[in-house]
C-alpha cells in the first residue's frame, strides 16, 4: 500500500487544523462561561423593576436552546465582517452561553437556601456573597457538566468547515481529497477520528477522575 500521503507536510497540515480547533474551542468556552454565568444570574435574581432583564435572558436562552448551532454559525458568518477565528469564536460564544447559563442555573438551584441567608446575616451584599460564597460552590458542582459541554463545543467546531475555517475537519478534507484509493482514505479518516477521540476522551477521563475524587472526599 502506498502510504506516501502520510508525508510530513500533510500530517503537519492536519495537525495545524487540530490546533486551530483547540484554540477556537478554548476561547469559545472561556467567553461562554463568563457570558453564561451573567445570563444565569440575571435569569435567577432580577426581580421587581429588573424583571424585564429576566424575561430577556429567558427568551435568549430558550431561543438558542431550540435552534441548531449550524444556523447561528451561518447567520453570524453572513452578518458579521471579520476574520474567520473571530467569527467562529463569536458564533460559538453566542450559542454556548445559553447552554452554559442553564448549567449554571442548575448549579445555583442546588446550593441550599441557608447559604444565602447565612451570607446575608454576616453582612455580605449581593455581589460579594455571590463572588465569595455562592459561585465558588456552584462551580465546584457544575465542573463535570461544563467539561462535557467542552467536548460538545470541540465536536461541534467541525461545523466550522462549512464556512471555510481551517480547522481539523476542513484541513483533513483537503488532504483526503488527494487520496486515490479506499484504503488510504479510510486510514486518513481513522486518523481524524482518532485526533477528535483522543482529545474528547481525555477530557471525559479527567472529568470522571474529578468526580471520583469529589465523591470520595
Amino acid at each position, binding site marked *: 500500500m502506498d502510504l506516501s500521503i502520510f508525508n510530513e507536510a500533510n500530517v503537519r497540515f492536519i495537525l495545524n487544523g487540530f490546533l486551530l480547533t483547540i484554540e477556537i474551542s478554548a476561547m469559545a468556552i472561556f467567553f461562554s462561561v463568563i457570558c453564561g454565568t451573567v445570563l444565569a444570574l440575571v435569569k435567577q435574581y432580577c426581580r421587581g423593576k429588573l424583571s424585564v432583564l429576566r424575561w430577556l435572558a429567558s427568551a435568549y436562552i430558550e431561543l438558542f436552546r*431550540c435552534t441548531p*448551532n449550524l444556523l447561528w454559525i451561518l447567520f453570524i458568518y*453572513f*452578518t458579521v465582517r471579520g476574520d474567520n477565528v473571530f467569527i467562529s469564536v463569536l458564533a460559538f460564544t453566542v450559542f454556548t452561553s445559553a447552554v452554559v447559563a442553564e448549567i449554571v442555573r442548575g448549579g445555583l438551584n442546588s446550593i441550599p437556601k441557608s447559604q444565602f441567608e447565612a451570607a446575608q446575616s454576616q453582612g455580605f451584599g449581593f455581589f460579594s456573597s455571590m463572588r465569595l460564597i455562592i459561585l465558588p460552590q456552584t462551580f465546584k458542582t457544575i465542573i463535570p457538566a461544563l467539561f462535557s459541554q467542552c*467536548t460538545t463545543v470541540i465536536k461541534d467546531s467541525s*461545523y466550522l468547515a462549512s464556512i471555510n475555517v481551517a480547522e481539523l475537519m476542513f484541513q483533513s478534507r483537503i488532504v483526503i481529497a488527494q487520496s486515490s484509493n479506499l484504503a488510504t482514505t479510510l486510514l486518513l479518516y481513522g486518523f481524524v477520528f482518532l485526533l*477528535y*477521540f483522543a482529545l474528547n476522551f481525555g477530557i471525559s477521563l479527567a472529568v470522571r477522575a474529578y468526580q471520583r475524587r469529589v465523591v470520595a472526599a
Partner: protein
Amino acid sequence: MLDGLFDLSRWQVTLGSMDTFWQGFLVTLQVVVAGLALSLALGTVLGVFSTTRSRVLRAVSRVYVEFYQNTPLPVQVIFMYMAGPQILQAVTGAASPVRIAPFVLGFVGVGLYHAAYVSEVIRTGIESVPRGQMEAALSQGFTRVQAYRYIILPQTFKVILPPLCNQALNLVKNTSVLALVAGGDLMYRSNSFVGSYGYLQGYIMACALYFVICFPLAMLVQYLERRAKLRPRAKAIPGIAPDAAEEA
C-alpha cells in the same frame, strides 16, 4: 447586512418562497422521526447490554458509546457520505460505488449518534432501581408483571423520561448536519435561499421553524423534570390495594 432586515419587499419574496421552506421542514421532520426510532431501538439494546453480566456485551456497548460520544457527528456523516459508497461497493461487489440517499445518511447519522446517548440514559435508568425493589414487591404478593407495572417501570421512567426528551430535542437540532451533504432539509434549503437571494430572512424563517419543533420539546423536558421531583401518589392496584385511593 442587517439593514435589509426591515425591507418589506424582501419579506414578501421570502414568504413567497415558503414552499421550499415547508419542503425542507418536512424532510427534517421525516429524518427526526426515523432517526428517533433508530436511536431509541439501538440505544435500548445497547443500554440493556451494558447492564448484563456478559463481559463481551458490556464491552461492545462501552466501545460503541465512547466512540460515538467522543467524535463529531459532522465528521461521521461526511465519512459516510464520502467513503460510504466505496465501502458498500467493496462489500457488495457492485460495479460502481453505491449511492446512499441523503435521507438515509441523515437518519442513520443522527440515529447512530444519539443511540450512544440514549444507551447511557437507559443504563442509568436501569441502575437507578435497586434489586431489592423487585424482591420487596414479590414478597408483598405482587406478581412479576404487576411488580414491573407498578413498582419498577414507574421509577425507571421517572429517571429516564426527562433526559430522553432532551435527547430528542438535541436530535432535532442535529438533523441540520444534513445541510453539509446537500440533504434537502430545512437548514440546507434556507442556506441555499440565502445564497441565491442574499436575504437574511431565510435564516430567520429557518430559526422560526426549528423553534416551532423544539420549543414544545423543551417545555416537555421542563414539565417532566418538575414532575419527577414530586412524591408519587397512592394508586389503586387490583388484588393488592384496591381501596388505596378511597382511603386517602
